[in-house]
């Protein structure tokens, strides 16, 4: 009984200590920013858009942007674009899905104001909120197509993987192969979301992503070890990053393990409105939908905390082992101390 009383005191002190140096300290060190659910209430409501009209209006977007899902290529490559604008404009295939429609339409009317970024490269691109709403309606349709393409491609890759496994003699049950497919599709969607929302300013070296795209697979020359293709790529990337740093004021940070460097709450509120957490930052308000943000976060978690699944599946075994160990030890202890008092 005395042991339990002492244990109570020790545990109470340890918990007070934990509360003081963790939750309490963090609540005092970081200012609280209210999360508003990616609703963008400060912006004007938009009228219903007509995708047909939007398609015509969107033709001018292709002057700078590519829209792969609609078969439109970028007029300039990333290097030339960054020389012209400071940053490479995004492919717009997913814009209709990733961006909140209200944000998107208001953004087209006045990009600098809506992004809260003083030197945003994109000029106002819609004459009225109605035009903007039409363009948004069009991009929503494009995004559906883009998503379908992503899904079909990911499924194809996943199925090939399953076939390969089966061929090498590994038994793959139906539920397992379904899981592989759904995981591959999810990962592909998450990555595309990240690329659209963050990928032209932020690298993710653990995901092998650079501002110029995936790190290309190159091979060094066998006699000398020189990898010219790699050096070329690095030179281009360096040039791009210098331009980007000039445009943004500094090189935006690599996001490989940002999920461990910032709290979930910070990331969410920061992405929703960067100025609230970091006044004066060059990062624009991106205008993501909740769904779009979840996908971006999914990708960031996959590079920043890749062991999550394994951790959760290993935990019960290790803790279970020690529970059994403790029960046996208790038996031993009781047998040894029997009749001592």
């Amino acid at each position, binding site marked *: 009984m005395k042991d339990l009383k002492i244990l109570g005191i020790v545990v109470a002190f340890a918990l007070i200590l934990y509360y003081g*140096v963790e939750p309490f300290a963090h609540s*005092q*060190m970081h200012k609280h920013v209210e999360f508003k659910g990616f609703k963008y209430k400060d912006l004007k409501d938009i009228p219903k858009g007509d995708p047909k009209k939007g398609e015509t209006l969107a033709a001018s977007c292709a002057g700078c942007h590519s829209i792969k899902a609609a078969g439109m290529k970028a007029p300039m490559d990333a290097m030339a674009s960054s020389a012209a604008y400071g940053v490479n404009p995004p492919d717009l295939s997913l814009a209709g899905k990733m961006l909140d429609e209200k944000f998107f339409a208001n953004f087209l009317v006045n990009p600098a104001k809506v992004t809260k970024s003083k030197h945003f490269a994109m000029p106002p691109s819609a004459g009225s909120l109605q035009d903007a709403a039409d363009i948004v309606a069009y991009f929503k349709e494009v995004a559906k197509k883009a998503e379908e393409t992503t899904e079909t491609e990911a499924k194809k890759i996943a199925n090939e993987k399953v076939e390969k496994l089966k061929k090498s003699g590994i038994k793959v049950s139906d539920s397992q192969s379904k899981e592989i497919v759904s995981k591959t599709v999810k990962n592909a969607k998450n990555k595309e979301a990240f690329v659209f929302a963050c990928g032209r300013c932020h690298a993710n070296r653990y995901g092998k992503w650079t501002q110029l795209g995936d790190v290309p697979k190159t091979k060094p020359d066998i006699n000398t070890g020189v990898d010219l293709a790699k050096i070329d790529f690095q030179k281009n990337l360096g040039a791009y990053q210098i331009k980007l740093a000039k445009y943004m004021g500094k090189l935006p940070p690599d996001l*490989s393990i940002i999920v461990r460097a910032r709290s979930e709450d910070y990331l969410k509120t920061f992405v929703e409105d960067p100025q609230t957490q970091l006044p004066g930052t060059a990062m624009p308000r991106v205008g993501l939908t909740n769904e779009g943000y979840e996908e971006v976060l999914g990708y960031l978690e996959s590079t920043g905390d*890749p062991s999550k699944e394994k951790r959760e599946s290993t*935990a019960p075994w290790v803790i279970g082992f020690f529970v059994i160990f403790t029960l046996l*030890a208790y038996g031993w202890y009781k047998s040894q101390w029997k009749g001592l008092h």
Partner: protein
Amino acid sequence: MAHFDENAKPFSHKWLNERLAVDTLKRVLSTEYWIPKNINFLWAMGMVLAATFGMLLISGIFLLMYYQPNTQLAFDSVNYTIMSEVGYGWLWRHIHGVGASVVFLIIYIHMFTGIYYGSYKRGRELIWLSGMLLFVAFSAEAFSGYMLPWGQMSYWAGMVITNLFSGGSLHATGLVEWIRGDYVPSQAFLNRFFMLHVLLIPLAIIGLIVFHFGTLRIPHVNNQDGEEFDFDAEAEKWKAGQKKESKVIPFNPVFLSKDVFVMGVYFILFFFLVFYNFEFAMDPVNFDPANPLKTPTHIYPEWYFLWSYEILRPFSTNIGLIAFAFAQVIFFALPFLDRSPNVAPASRRGPFKYWFWILLVDMLILTFMGKLPPVKPWGTIGYVAAVIFIILWIALPFITKSEKKL
């Protein structure tokens, strides 16, 4: 030359006994190493500490196989190679990180147990002193290890702590550069802290653990009432089968059986933290790579150094350094500052009872304030708590001298 039986088979019991005295060793170190019976689970903290050190050592060996002590590579070798390319690398890292934090919690429990029961007094001074040396060695080990991931907090904590050696108005910048091997923390700095962390300090710790065990052997472990008794006589009772009457138990298997049980409970908690709540041991700021051009908004040490950091911080530079130095060494003096002849739990010792709890709460407050930014009211609370800490230690000889003999 001792007598060796020619017919003893190699590695047989007799053969080993003649060469190693295994029977004697076993008797002296385990089956007839007597521990008082009147103890509670806090007496198991020593073994819990040894086991945690074992976890740190084993996980450290695995991490060492992939860690790169290079300012360009260190961060990614920890956060990428070990976390995603090495099988179960994440597990070893989280064991190491959580272990480094939890080991200090147990050390503090172990220390305050010693203070509460007066286990540093009369004959047990060396136990306390060797324990304090271990505390210092563990602190150095923790600090040097904290440098290795080469994140923002590694870099800036390294900067701040090495700066302390400039001695305020002494401006001993030469000494600081000598410690760093450069003007600022850099490759030379990382390399030497790596060496300290994986070789020199662990060696010292292992030596000190042996010494700490050695200091226990003659004065024996204290008991819950601070009662002094004849261990030999009590041991005879045990050996004669009067187990109920005897005040002692053998280390092995009786004491050990309780230790192992406590260790089991402890490891359930330990691995709960490793798998589900490891973030407290791995500061988010350290997941940003070291950047000499960008000072983090808040620089603070890990929780176990916060109380002494807060004794440094609220004062002006020179006074702060003196107060800090005072806080670092004063615990060593405990056996000599406590003038009371009583070996008893604090609850039976008059004013010392209050001294103990005030010290504990004061250090808890210092710990809280050490992490918070030094603004109102936290700065003021920290200042008052730091002054109280110093006053408590100055008052100790006086209040213990007036203590009545029990």
